[in-house]
C-alpha cells in the first residue's frame, strides 16, 4: 500500500508539471505556418540586425550591435557575413567544408562539415560554439522545440513593426521570455525576435529580419570560401 501511494504521488507530481504548461493553439498554428513556409524553401536570402546585451567588467550593461547578410540554398549551401561591434566575420559552407573567416583578425578556420545545412549548423555549434545568425528559425522542428522548452506560449494579437502588420507571440519558461513578431501577410516570416534571459539579469537579445528573398537563384560561387591573401589558417579548440 505504501509503495502504491508513493508511486501514485510521483505520477501526480509529473501530471501537475504537465498541467502548468499553457500552449495556445493559435500561436502554434501561426508558428507551424511559418515553419511550413521556411521548410518549403529551396533557397533564401535575408538580412538581420541584432542587438546583444552583455555585462562589462564592472557589471554594467553594454549592447553590441551587428548586421548580418544570410543566404542559403538547400540542402547544403550556406553563407553569412556579419559586421558589428564584436567583430566582422563570415561563414561559408559549400556542402563539403565550413570556413569561418575573421575579417577583424584576418585569420580563418576550415573544417570538414556534415552534409546538410542543419546538421552542419548543429554540429559546429555543439563542437565549437559557432553561432550562426538566426539559425533557430531553420530547425525543422522549430515549433515542437518551442513547445518542448517553454511552459507558456500564447498569441497576443497583432502588432505593427516598421509599418508591417505582424502576429505577436510570446513564450515563457523559467529561464527565458521570448517575444516573436511574424508577418501576417501571405508569407508568414519572422520579423523580430526578442529573448530576455530572466536568470541572467534580464539581459536581452534582439533580432530584426528584413529584405527577405524567397527561392532566389543564388550563384553557387558565393558559398565557396577562398582565403584572402596573407590570411592565416589557424587551429581551433573543440568544446570538451
Amino acid at each position, binding site marked *: 500500500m505504501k509503495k502504491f501511494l508513493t508511486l501514485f504521488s*510521483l505520477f501526480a*507530481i509529473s501530471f501537475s508539471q*504537465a*498541467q502548468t504548461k*499553457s*500552449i*495556445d*493553439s493559435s500561436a*502554434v498554428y501561426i508558428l*507551424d505556418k511559418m515553419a511550413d513556409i*521556411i*521548410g518549403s524553401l*529551396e533557397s533564401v536570402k535575408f538580412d538581420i540586425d541584432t542587438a546583444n546585451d552583455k555585462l562589462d*567588467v564592472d557589471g554594467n550593461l553594454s549592447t553590441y550591435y551587428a548586421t548580418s547578410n544570410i543566404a542559403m*540554398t*538547400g540542402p547544403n549551401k550556406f553563407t553569412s557575413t556579419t559586421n558589428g561591434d564584436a*567583430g566582422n566575420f563570415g561563414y561559408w559552407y559549400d*556542402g*563539403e*567544408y565550413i570556413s569561418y573567416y575573421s575579417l577583424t583578425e584576418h*585569420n580563418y*578556420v576550415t*573544417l*570538414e*562539415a*556534415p552534409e*546538410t*545545412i*542543419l*546538421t552542419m549548423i*548543429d*554540429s559546429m*555549434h*555543439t*563542437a565549437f*560554439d559557432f553561432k550562426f545568425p538566426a*539559425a*533557430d528559425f*531553420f*530547425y*525543422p*522542428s*522549430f515549433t*515542437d522545440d518551442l*513547445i*518542448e522548452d517553454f511552459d507558456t506560449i500564447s*498569441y497576443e494579437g497583432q502588432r505593427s513593426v516598421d509599418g508591417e502588420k505582424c502576429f505577436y507571440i510570446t513564450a515563457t519558461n523559467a529561464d527565458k521570455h*521570448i517575444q516573436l513578431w511574424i508577418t501576417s501577410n501571405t508569407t508568414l516570416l519572422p520579423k523580430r525576435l526578442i*529573448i530576455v534571459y530572466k536568470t541572467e539579469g534580464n539581459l536581452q537579445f534582439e533580432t530584426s529580419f528584413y529584405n527577405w528573398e524567397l527561392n532566389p*537563384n543564388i550563384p*553557387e560561387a558565393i558559398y565557396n570560401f577562398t582565403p584572402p591573401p596573407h590570411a*592565416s*589558417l*589557424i*587551429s*581551433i*579548440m*573543440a*568544446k*570538451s
Partner: protein
Amino acid sequence: MKLILNSIKYFSATALIVILSLGTTETMHAQRLKHPVSRGGNKSMAHKPASRPVSRPTTANRKITTPTNRGGSINGGHTKVISRNNLPNRNTNNKTTVNRNRPTINNNNKQVINRNKPTINNNKGKQVINRNKNTSNVKTINRRPGNTGGGRNNININNSHNNININVNNNRHNHRNTYVRHSHRHYTRPPHIFGGFRFYCHWPYYYHPYRPYYWGPHWHPWGYFVTSLATTAIIVAIIDDNNDNNEEYHYDNGTYYLKTEDGFEAVQAPIGAQVPSIPDEAEKVTVNETNNYYYGGAFYEQNADGYIVVPATAGTIVPNLPEGGEEVKIGDQTYVQFGDTYYQPIQVDGKNMYEIVDVLEDE
C-alpha cells in the same frame, strides 16, 4: 536485516523513477533556443560524421546517387513530432495542457517536399570542389589533476564529439615543458569561458597576429638540427627530474638540444635544467612580485649555481614568443598555444605583448 535490504532496494527503485520522470536536465543547447526535438531522432537532423572516410563500403542493392546542389529544402522540411490534437482551441477556452507523452511521428503532418521541381542550370558552371583543401587542426584542452598546475601526467581526454576529427599533439617535449603554474594574484576581469574551462587574464584581449621572434644568430628555433655542437655546449643537469627517460640535454648559449641518433635537435628548455649563465639578451619579467628571466620562450629563476628553468606562471607578460607556437581559436578569441601554455595577445602601453593565461576547469 532483510527488511533493511528491502527498504534500500525500494528506495533505490523510487529514486530511479523520480530521476526518469524528471528527464534529462542537461539538454543540449543549440543556438539561442533549445532544439531538443530537432535532435530527437529526426531524420533530417541525424548527425553525420564531420570527417568522412575516404572510401565507403558499397552494396549491390545500394542506389548510388549524386548529390545535387539545388532542388532540396533548406532544412529538409518542417517536421511535427508533438501532436497538435490535444492543444486547446482558443475559441472554446479549453484547459491548456500539452500532451507530454511523446507520440510516434505523425507522418501525415510531415511536409511533402516537391522533389520533382526542375533544377536550374544543374550542369553549367558546376563548381569543382577542391577536396585537397587545407583544414584546421582540431584540438582539445588537456585535463590533468589540479588543472594547469599539476604534474606531468598529461591525460588528453577526447570526450568532445564523435563527429570531430581530433588531431592530438604528440610532441612530448612541448607537453612536458609547458605546464603553467597558477598565479595567486586575484583576477578582476571575468574569464573567457569555453568548453567547461575558464581562461583568466589580467589584461583585456587585444588581437595581433603571431609572429615568431628570433633572439639573434646564436639562438635556434625548436626543431633545428645539427650533427655536432660547438665546444661551448655543456650537458645540462636536470634538477628534480622525475622523468624516467634518460634523455641527454645539451645547452649552448640559450638553446637546448636533445641528443638523437644522428645528431642534436633544438628543443624547448626542459624544466629543472640548471645552467651557469643565460644570454645577455634575456629580459626581466615580473612573476608574482619576483623577477624571472625570459629568453627563447623559457623562464629562468636565478639561484646560487646560476639559473634554473622554471615553468611558466599565469599572469606573466612577455614581449615576444618563439617559433613553435600555434594560433588556436577558442570560442571567439584566438590564443597562441605552446603545449599546455596559452598566451593571450594583449597590448600594453601601445605595444603588442602576450599574457600567460590561467586555465581553470569548471567545477
